[in-house]
């Protein structure tokens, strides 16, 4: 384990990117910050700029208008980069599969480290997913 990964697993700063979702995963992500789930106690924090982030949290089917923005945001992110796909949409498109505006599953565009399935995943599931990712880093 390099020193970067060692520091990384202490507290993750997360940047949230919506690429054509239905809002629901996004609300559940916001819900994580509020008193019942309160992920800030683990040091996890949503940040305003991708340049500060360790983790890119992506929701949505990745629509055509978003593709150049997703690529650009991924490039702007400092290494080591972790990408989490939240919900069924970035994995295969959920009910929107086959739409003319779907640019494809997220992993065809940028590499993905963790998939959290569900429509939408419960906040507990998102926390469990992130905990598993931290395990993997060890």
């Amino acid at each position: 384990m390099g020193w970067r990964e060692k520091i990384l697993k202490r507290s993750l700063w997360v940047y949230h990117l919506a690429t054509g979702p239905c809002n629901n995963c996004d609300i559940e992500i916001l819900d994580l910050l509020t008193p019942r789930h309160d992920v800030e106690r683990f040091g996890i924090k949503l940040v305003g700029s991708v340049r500060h982030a360790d983790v890119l949290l992506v929701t949505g089917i990745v629509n055509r208008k978003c593709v150049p923005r997703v690529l650009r945001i991924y490039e702007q992110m400092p290494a080591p980069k972790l990408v989490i796909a939240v919900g069924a949409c970035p994995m295969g498109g959920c009910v929107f599969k086959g739409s003319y505006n779907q640019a494809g599953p997220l992993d065809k565009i940028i590499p993905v480290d963790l998939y959290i399935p569900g429509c939408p995943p419960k906040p507990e599931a998102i926390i469990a997913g992130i905990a598993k990712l931290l395990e993997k880093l060890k």
Partner: protein
Amino acid sequence: MAKAVIPIGPYHPLQEEPEHFLLTVEGEKVVDVEVHIGYNHRGIEKLAEHKSWQQVTFLVARICGICSTSHPIAYCNAVENLCRVEIPERAKYIRTLVGELERIHSHLLWLGLAGHFLGYNTVWMWVWKWREPVLDIFEALTGNRNHYDMLLPGGVRRDLNEEYFPWVRKELGELKKNLEMLSKAILDDPVIISRLKGIGVLTPEDVKNYGAVGPTARASGVKIDVRKDDPYAAYDLIQWEVATCENGDLLDKVVVRILEIFESIKMVEECMDALEKVKGEVMATIKEVPPGEGIGRHEAPRGETFHYVRSDGGSSPIRHKVRAPTYVNLPTCKATLPGSQLADAIIILASIDPCYCCTERVAVVSDKKKEYLTQEDLIKLSWEKTEKLRRKYGK
């Protein structure tokens, strides 16, 4: 003074949906705004043409996660209008109950975010804490926290378990108490009042010109509400009032929504009373969908949702048109934003409760020199104004 263009968007860490605004400013004053949307376009109208009548219900539920029962209600109304079918009475009450619970959770969500934009993070945390029991109620009654998928053309998919009703009443009673406390606290605070009063006024003329709907229109004194005007489900079977205000500024938009939450709690309780008496089927059978056209509407938390379907007698719609309330409410920012201060821009954009706006970064372009403000800076700008006012009022 030199004009500058400030792009807000398309990405923002706190809002759900990406949207892109270009604000033209002169100093601190906003003079023009341009809206770009489409970062969320999923081609649902085309997809609906390849799904069966039943499947479309689940597709439209996923148009928006916050109004995930509004679109199905409007769609089912449209199909039932097309087939001229009347749904069973018990199903009507269940639809109303789910629809009103959704309004409570959606308005609470907005109230919390509005508090965050004003620099009152306590409001955000409190309100979202109180929102959790509403989601628990959903989970107990429908099986899901979000995306309840309760509806099908002809009725509802499953019956409610009445054992939960006493507990639901208790939770809603507590929510009511908390909200009364919060609304007094909000309306007593001189800082919040001066941040909201007289800002971002939407006149009744603009409501008509832009066709604005929902709380955005009702805050300006335009009393339109599909639930009253064109009743469907059980809205003509229970007693309730339409909440309106007069000034059309941000304060009234907050007040209207708080009043609506109280009204909705009352309606949910009435529906539960009725459901304990009215028994029977929850599905009417629709054997086939005849050729023709149907229009269905529902008053979603944000305003009127409109669905148009056309059938050729086959197994799926040949055209399905959806108009969400934000589609007509969003352009109203062209009327409300110009003339306001930059620090107020974020709360004005948020005031229509769009299924949402905003920023990844904000670039202030002036005199060819590029200076980048992050989205956080913009929120900070809003917070600083609150701080200034706080000092002024000695709080």
